[in-house]
């Protein structure tokens, strides 16, 4: 799972819909891998508007990266160094193994071989 996807997934349990703890999920015991990809400045800029910045900072810190500015940079003060850092974090950082926990219902989702599973046991399925 690429880091950027962590900004777009939430707990799949119906009763967690819209609750504060269901997004972002709490990432634990993660094994990361960097997969080099071509830097596309325009794409990273186009993505900025779509990101939930506080969730991004939180998950980055759970994965050991505390270098992300706490506030979303505006287009005026963005520079190439920051864009390259974001590219590396968002698109090149792969979570190969790990857990994602919902802070609302405490359900644990697993990432195995790079793919996150959100399938629920029958008693929790919608």
């Amino acid at each position, binding site marked *: 799972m690429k880091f950027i996807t962590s900004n777009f997934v*939430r707990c*799949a349990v119906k009763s967690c819909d819209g609750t504060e703890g269901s997004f972002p999920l709490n990432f634990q015991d993660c094994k990361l891998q960097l997969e080099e990809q071509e830097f596309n400045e325009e*794409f990273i800029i*186009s993505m900025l508007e779509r990101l939930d910045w506080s969730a991004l900072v939180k998950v980055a810190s759970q994965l050991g990266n505390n270098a992300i500015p706490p506030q979303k940079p505006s287009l005026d003060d963005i520079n190439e160094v920051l864009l390259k850092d974001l590219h590396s974090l968002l698109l090149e950082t792969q979570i190969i193994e790990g857990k994602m926990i919902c802070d609302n219902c405490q359900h644990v989702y697993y990432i195995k071989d790079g793919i996150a599973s959100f399938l629920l046991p029958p008693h929790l399925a919608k």
Partner: protein
Amino acid sequence: MLSTPIVKDLDIDKVYEPAEDTFLFLDMFEQLHEEQYFTNLNSNSTANFVLEIGSGSGLITTFIAEHNIIPRSYNLVSDINIVALRTTLNTFNDNTENTNCDALRCNLADSIRLNQINYLLFNPPYVPSEEIPSIPDADDISNTAWVDLALVGGNDGMLITNNLLNSLNNILAINGEAYILFCARNKHPQVVEKFKSKWTNFQVNCVIQRKCGWEELAIYRFKKMS
């Protein structure tokens, strides 16, 4: 004519094999691409999130990414079948330099943040059946039920599609569009009328229709206007 991605090493006992319904999606996207439909809609510079539900072999998502049909897109795919997800990622990586794709094992869009998806694609299990097999244990990857689950849709073949239609308003961003395939036995004109009377913030129209042997297939666009 745009090239069709190559799917290598497809295990047809475990993953749905591309068929007329899959190719109808490809033809529709090629037609929309020629009309510059997506570039005209996306004159601003924001990224688009594309979600394909039930990506199977990965042919559709790979096709639109390979030919850059939707500008500035990040492609998510979901499937309940882990073998399908791995096949999708392989198909994607084998055919395109584009790397903006990620796979989630998930029912429909249950784990996707609400109101974020700009384009949703769904080639559902639409074949009418008396019942739908229950989902096997997640680790039981050689169970043949996985491929049946990609095909059969219960009463009128609409059981799974109806679940998605009921949550469409929560999944799509404003101005987001869902492309969903139906066969004639799904009674899609009635389905669409019912949907439109319930969700007045949507515009719905048929984009492409085709007779394929004994099957008649159609893809509708559901656009969330507000």
